[in-house]
């Protein structure tokens, strides 16, 4: 078979698949067509994330698995980069999804938006291929510009950084121009300012520095001030909008809540940055400032749970999209437990001295990223698919409801199971490697070889598989839910 025939076959297969999904794009406005493009890539990258997570987890148990071909470092890099990128795709998608509705007008720069989508997607594909097939380079600037910057979470080479900034600026232009043409609201204002901060922070991660203390100082500006400040506020915005749409909560109430959340989140999260400045060479005052402010970070997360649960309860959980509401509630709790509780547990310097850089961090990282950010994106995938199907019924007695319920269960139980396994490993490491053996090379391996660590890695693997199974079911459900449904969506009454 030559290349042309191969393309033909692939195209035919794709067509069959598209016909099978029976999704009608004419149900979507232009802005929302763009949004679902982002959602589709997000789901594909989510799949890649878990695939490479499974490979990395396997290497903890069988270190020779793919050794020399796809080493742990490569798999882990793809795992966490796919995560960061799919979540950003999801957030961009969510923003485009609510933009026209919130501004009550059509997206201004739709052409740019589409172009930006393709540029970004091709860039992401190239970066991933280079990660997988070139992997590493010589110790010089060329490598940092073209292959890999070697900095956890923001490994993307410099050329891609610049591309990302350009794309984000286009996105930002679209948001601002659309609100300006249509109408501004409290939600719109918070969203816009937050996006400025989110994009601006990325710049802090775009420089090479030999002084590793300075380098990590700026690196945390990106990582921490993203996930514990700007991303939190972004999901606050998204939640505010979805509570209005899903439950019909009054605008005045969600806007007031949103301002409260912004005050609490930025008031604790910005200086909470200091919990990463305990041990990287930075001055001692960070022990106090970082410890104090980061210990306050759970407060806004409690507020968010109260908000979501109270609103749902006061509307007797009556809503037009059950899976989406279930994931919104999973978000409120996941955010609170993963970020708030798990984060708080290791955030004071007196304990962080021992837990820093152990599986403890990984335990928190998994529950927090999943609980706070995977969940809310999944909720939006469900909102999107319902609309795409033509606003069909997705409340009680929906067809094949077991699928979304099982996907919800498997994903959540899987991640919680991994979190607990990693927590056990982390405690053991903090105790044996850090406290008793003083973090030496041999101390590290005594902890890694300990039976409780080893069995934790096996448990993590099985719960990982459960998570992965949950994702596959989720994808199947997203593709089929509401297919053949004739009833129209339940109407939500505004307060």
């Amino acid at each position, binding site marked *: 078979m030559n290349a042309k025939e191969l393309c033909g076959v692939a195209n035919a297969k794709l067509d069959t698949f598209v016909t099978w999904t029976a999704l009608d794009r004419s149900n979507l406005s232009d802005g929302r067509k763009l949004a679902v493009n982002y959602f589709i890539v997000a789901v594909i990258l989510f799949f890649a994330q878990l695939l490479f997570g499974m490979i990395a987890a396997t290497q903890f148990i069988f270190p020779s698995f793919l050794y020399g071909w796809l080493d*742990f470092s490569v798999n882990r890099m793809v795992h966490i980069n796919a995560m960061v990128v799919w979540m950003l795709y999801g957030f961009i998608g969510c923003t485009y999804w609510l933009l026209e509705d919130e501004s009550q007008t059509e997206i201004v720069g739709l052409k740019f938006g589409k172009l930006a989508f393709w540029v970004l997607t091709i860039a992401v594909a190239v970066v991933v291929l280079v990660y997988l097939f070139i992997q590493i380079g010589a110790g010089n600037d060329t490598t940092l510009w073209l292959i890999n910057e070697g900095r956890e979470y923001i490994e993307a080479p410099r050329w891609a950084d610049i591309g990302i900034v350009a794309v984000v600026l286009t996105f930002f232009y679209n948001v601002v121009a659309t609100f300006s043409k249509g109408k501004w609201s409290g939600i719109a204002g918070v969203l816009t300012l937050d996006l400025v901060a989110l994009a601006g922070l990325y710049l802090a991660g775009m420089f090479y520095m030999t002084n590793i*203390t300075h380098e990590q100082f700026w690196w945390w500006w990106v990582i921490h001030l993203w996930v514990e400040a700007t991303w939190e506020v972004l999901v606050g915005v998204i939640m505010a909008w979805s509570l209005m749409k899903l439950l019909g909560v009054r605008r005045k109430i969600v806007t007031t809540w949103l301002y*409260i959340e912004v005050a609490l989140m930025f008031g604790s999260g*910005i200086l909470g940055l200091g919990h990463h400045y305990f041990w990287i060479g930075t001055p001692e005052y960070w022990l106090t400032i970082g410890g104090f402010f980061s210990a306050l970070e759970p407060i806004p997360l409690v507020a968010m749970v109260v908000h979501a649960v109270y609103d749902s309860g006061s509307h007797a959980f009556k809503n037009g999209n059950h899976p989406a509401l279930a994931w919104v509630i999973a978000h409120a709790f996941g955010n609170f437990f993963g970020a708030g509780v798990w984060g708080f547990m290791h955030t004071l310097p007196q304990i962080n001295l021992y837990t820093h850089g152990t599986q403890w961090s990984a335990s928190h990282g998994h529950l927090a990223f999943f609980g706070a950010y995977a969940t809310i994106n999944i909720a939006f995938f469900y909102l999107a698919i319902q609309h795409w199907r033509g606003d069909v019924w997705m409340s009680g007695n929906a067809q094949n409801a077991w699928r979304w319920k099982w996907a919800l269960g498997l994903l959540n139980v899987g991640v919680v199971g991994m979190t607990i396994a990693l927590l056990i490993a982390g405690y053991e490491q903090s105790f044996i490697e850090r406290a008793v053996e003083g*973090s030496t090379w*041999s101390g590290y391996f005594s902890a890694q070889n300990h039976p409780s660590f080893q069995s934790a890695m096996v448990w993590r693997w099985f719960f990982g598989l459960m998570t992965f199974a949950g994702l596959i079911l989720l994808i199947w459900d997203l593709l089929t839910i509401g297919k053949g449904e004739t009833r129209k969506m339940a109407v939500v009454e505004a307060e």
Partner: protein
Amino acid sequence: MNEENPLWASESFWKKVAIWVTAGSFIILVVLTFDSLSQTEVGGKRVQAYSVINKKIDYVYKEDLHKFMPVIGETELLFGQEFTEEEAEKLVTLGKKTTQAKNCMNCHTLLGNGAYFAPDLTKAWLDKGWLSKELREDLMIKFLLDPENNARTFGSNRKMPNLHITPEEAKGVVAFLKWMSSIDTNGFPYNFKTIYATEE
């Protein structure tokens, strides 16, 4: 403000609070950032000049401070050579770029940040795994050039892959690790016994 809409429930009040709290926190952060960056310039008290690679570096518990601190001692040359500040900077820079280009951070932690598949590198230069201060440099270079055949897996079967590091890059990495071990990290890692502690 009327009875039905007290201050604490008013939208415009919380909007102002949000703006002031955010701006205030950010300004404090910027001020602290200037201070921290200047206190951690290379050549200061917390982050040593690159030429510290010409010196003996140790890490010991200070009773009065209740924490471990790096101690810079007498001359102890690296690769039998005395580096000027510029030469040292060049070598450490090569080493740092190599650690990024080879993606060390996605298996190891540096200053405790990174991945958890391999040991922390913060004080790797001081690790007693290098047997003695006479053998250390050679062992490190050999290991970096061919980790597969010089692996010390401590029974874990986990081996560092061959990252095609050149001899010059390996020297750079060793210099970088030596320099990094002299950074004052507020006592992290705790209870670390150095290669010197074991020798004496």
